């Protein structure tokens, strides 16, 4: 406290600081998983958003629940990209890194730009912690960080001084407020106001005044320290972005999915039955939905993934909206039952939050390598629609569309998210429910005309969908099941031509969904040198890269697939209008295989299988190469 007090007193002779306006900034707060970096990151994000910046964030938790303190495995990070222009990714390289201990430094320093700002908690670089992180000498002192603008701050000490005198603060509690000191410091550095955070602290700890006081004081102390200390000479500010007018919040992919499903239930005027088995990174969907039970969402934690999908097939048969959420290994287990949903033509939605495989792989890391599993991972010919949201907000929209499609076409629908989308936090323009068209559901009742005619559960409507009759409907009793069925009556049939016709009907039904899809849109010129074709969460990096290079005058466009089966009807034309197609994917070329098989264009596959999303500059580099190639042709 003394030091802070001293600084405050010296207010008049505060060091002269200059202010600088920048377009966009990427920072990362990193520390031990017990250090509260996620919280500090979220609060910084809130403040940025309130300032009117466009924001994109990415939290990066350790794989272990509680890795031993101070180890590399225990490092937790939160990255924030905030900007005065529209942005689509949490950013490639860091302008600023805050490292609360040696392990955090070691893990994260690779991503800091040369000459980037590096703020370290000097006090936590002790021989013990350095050894734990595998440092032979103290990097804060051995000049190994000379490529960066290093600021070694006594965060621990300053924080302690600030809060230790507050009544009732234990040593453990004191340490837990370090993150707010750091937050205060970078809030000054990037000219963020503190009031949103202070408001939050007050409401969060409303019954624990000493904690409120401690957090508030150290937050301010950090801020003042930034303002008054000698090292940080420049304060940066990032102006408001011009965003579409409206009400905004920030949202992660997982939250958006949950809210989208609740909205789908609302729009369909139906109960949604969510049956799932916990698996990283999909479990949070269950955690979100169980809190939305009041909005007609029934959640069921099943004994495994097979039971999860079984339960939603049962619920769908009963007339609820059946939804499950899982990740790769769980999806593999659901394969057989998904086939049952295909042949019984029951509407369910399966959300697959992709993570790095094969097998258990790297469970917390994103990958896009379940695409072919989703398309083909079932016995027999069993086509189903596949949708892939491109941003957290799009998770909301597509989860609604998935439900709509499932019911309209009486089919299981798969929504492919990934670990990156799930955790990525973006500002989101909040939709008005009144503007959403209702999801129409028709459950036939026995009509008087039908008289004693036997009900035929496999007659199809103009969309090739069969009637959605609910058990309990008098006079329409019928049986469905996994054996091939006669095309009208639904009776078991081994007739060869009937089987072929049913296989074709199921295929055509799914192919026919194309009529409902929006035409694929291009960002940039509609023809030219290079088209970047992305899908799902790769959108952000692909879009930014193409936009960046277009600004440089290169002939580059990009288009992102949100509907992968069926593919939009105009995709072939679009692909044909560019000299080169670049197809970046977080896998070994799975969409590439489909595109090569379906269209005669030859596309360049670009793959990254590192459990990390693409960087914008990686894609830019590939585009440049392709353009150079064209020029050499």
């Amino acid at each position, binding site marked *: 406290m003394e030091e802070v007090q001293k600084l405050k007193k010296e207010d008049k002779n505060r060091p002269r600081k200059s202010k600088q306006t920048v377009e966009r900034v990427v920072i990362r707060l990193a520390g031990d998983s017990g250090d509260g970096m996620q919280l500090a990151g979220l609060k910084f994000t809130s403040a940025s958003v309130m300032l009117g910046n466009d924001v994109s964030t990415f939290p990066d938790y350790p794989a272990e629940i509680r890795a031993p303190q101070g180890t590399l495995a225990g490092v937790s990070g939160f990255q924030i990209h905030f900007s005065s222009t529209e942005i689509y990714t949490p950013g490639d390289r860091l302008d600023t890194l805050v490292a609360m201990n040696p392990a955090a430094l070691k893990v994260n320093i690779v991503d800091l730009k040369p000459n980037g700002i590096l703020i370290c908690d000097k006090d936590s670089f002790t021989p013990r912690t350095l050894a734990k992180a595998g440092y032979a000498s103290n990097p804060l002192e051995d000049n190994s960080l000379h490529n960066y603008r290093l600021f070694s701050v006594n965060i621990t000490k300053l924080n302690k001084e600030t809060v230790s005198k507050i009544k009732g603060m234990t040593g453990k509690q004191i340490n837990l407020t370090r993150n707010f000191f750091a937050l205060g410091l970078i809030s000054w550095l990037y000219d963020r106001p503190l009031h949103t955070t202070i408001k939050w602290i007050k409401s969060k700890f409303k019954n624990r005044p000493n904690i409120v006081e401690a957090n508030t004081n150290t937050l301010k102390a950090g801020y003042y320290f930034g303002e008054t200390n000698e090292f940080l000479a420049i304060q940066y500010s990032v102006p408001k972005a011009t965003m579409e007018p409206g009400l905004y919040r920030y949202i992660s992919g997982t939250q958006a999915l949950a809210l989208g499903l609740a909205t789908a239930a609302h729009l369909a005027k139906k109960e949604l039955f969510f049956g799932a088995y916990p698996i990283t990174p999909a479990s949070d969907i269950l955690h979100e939905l169980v809190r939305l039970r009041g909005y007609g969402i029934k959640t069921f934690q099943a004994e495994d993934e097979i039971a999860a999908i079984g339960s939603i097939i049962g619920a769908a048969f009963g007339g609820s909206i059946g939804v499950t959420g899982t990740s790769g290994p769980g999806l593999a287990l659901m394969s057989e039952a998904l086939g049952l949903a295909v042949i019984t033509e029951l509407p369910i939605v399966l959300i697959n939050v992709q993570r790095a495989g094969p097998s258990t792989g790297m469970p917390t890391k994103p990958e896009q390598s379940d695409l072919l599993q989703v398309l083909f991972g079932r016995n027999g010919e069993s086509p189903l629609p596949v949708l892939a949201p491109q941003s957290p907000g799009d998770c909301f929209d597509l989860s609604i569309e998935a439900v709509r499609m499932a019911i309209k076409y009486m089919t299981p629908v798969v929504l492919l998210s990934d670990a990156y989308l799930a955790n990525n936090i973006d500002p989101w323009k909040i939709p008005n429910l009144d503007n959403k068209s209702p999801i129409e559901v028709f459950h036939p009742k026995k009509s008087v005309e039908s008289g004693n005619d036997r009900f035929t559960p496999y007659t199809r409507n103009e969309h090739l969908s069969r009637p959605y009759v609910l058990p309990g409907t008098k006079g329409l*009793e019928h049986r469905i099941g996994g054996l091939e069925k006669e095309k009208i009556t639904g009776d078991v049939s081994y007739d060869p031509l009937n089987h072929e016709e049913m296989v074709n009907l199921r295929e055509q039904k799914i192919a026919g969904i194309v009529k409902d899809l929006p035409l694929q849109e291009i960002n940039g010129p509609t023809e030219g040198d290079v088209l970047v074709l992305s899908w799902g969460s790769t959108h952000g990096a692909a879009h930014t890269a193409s936009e960046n290079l277009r600004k440089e005058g290169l002939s580059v466009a990009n288009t992102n697939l949100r509907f992968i089966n069926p593919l939009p009807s105009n995709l072939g034309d679009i692909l044909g209008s560019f000299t080169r197609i670049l197809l970046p994917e977080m896998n070994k070329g799975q969409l590439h295989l489909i595109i090569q098989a379906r269209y005669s264009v030859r596309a360049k596959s670009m793959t990254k299988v590192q459990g990390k999303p693409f960087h914008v500059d990686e894609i830019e580099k590939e585009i440049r190469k392709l353009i150079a190639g064209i020029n050499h042709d």
Partner: protein
Amino acid sequence: MTNEENTLTPSSVLSPKDFDSGFDVRWCPGCGDYAILANLKRVLPTLGIPKEKFVVVSGIGCSSRFPYYLDTYGMHTIHGRAPTIATGLKCSRPDLSVWVVTGDGDGLSIGGNHLMHAIRRNVDIKILLFNNQIYGLTKGQYSPTTKQSKRTKSSPTGSIDYPVNPISWALGAEATFIARTIFQYPDHMQQVLRRAAEHRGVSFVEIYQNCVIFNDGAFRYATDKEMRYDNIFELEHGNPMKFGRDQEKGIFLHGLTPKVINYKQAGFDETDLLHHDENAQESTLAFFLSRMRYPEFPEPIGIFRAIQKPTYNDLLDNQMEEAKQAVTKPLQEIINGEENWTVT
């Protein structure tokens, strides 16, 4: 999700014939499944439940063809998974009467886990396990209930698997209603099925069934006119356990093991015999009874256990109701979130 306009049919007008789906029944001539079908067709119309409220869910196996032959709603699903589908269905539609038909292979081999969890949760579904101690549909491999040493297609020199005892197993899974009946005991079966239907909570019924093709005579000790008296006894709530052609033999409790004594000869009284208590809160008595197996002991049939516990689906609906009561804001406000801002 209820269709109230449909629930008004007076069930009194229903007859077994109303439950005839008109499908050709495809079991082998002489298969024990026919009798079970016939008996269930007798029971269903008497339950006071409209026909359209019944749903029969099955897995895969000869037994699992069952739904096709009943004119109710039905689903012939995939191997072993019927309990999961029935659970989802019952939880989403508590107004329906949901039945699971499964076999010893479907229910206890591939499907053992789901059956266990449906039972443990006390979901209000009626599970009928047709136990023929063999895989019928795949043409005669041993199942988890096949007697050890049995020669089958996949065990030509005798099976080395120790069989599982379905009743003990279901007790280990905490079933609230457990019963056993035999395909050739129509009255007994109907009575058991009716009680199973009336139980609020999970009902687990093991039905001995004869597969004439691949395991003929497996239950002859229990169905043969000459042998059955000595090998089978009926459990009756509150009554002493006795059997034999003249009901002359009785079951005594000897510490924690059963003892069979010709109690009349030995000069005992009926009151000395072990009495059945299907409502015993603890499952030890039922477990004790389940251990009595032919040939060492006569086998009990009837209701081993019938206790009351709130059903999973009721508990779930209670929580849903509470959650709905606790709602203070419309969905739009939830979507708006706690922290939001306006861009103009």
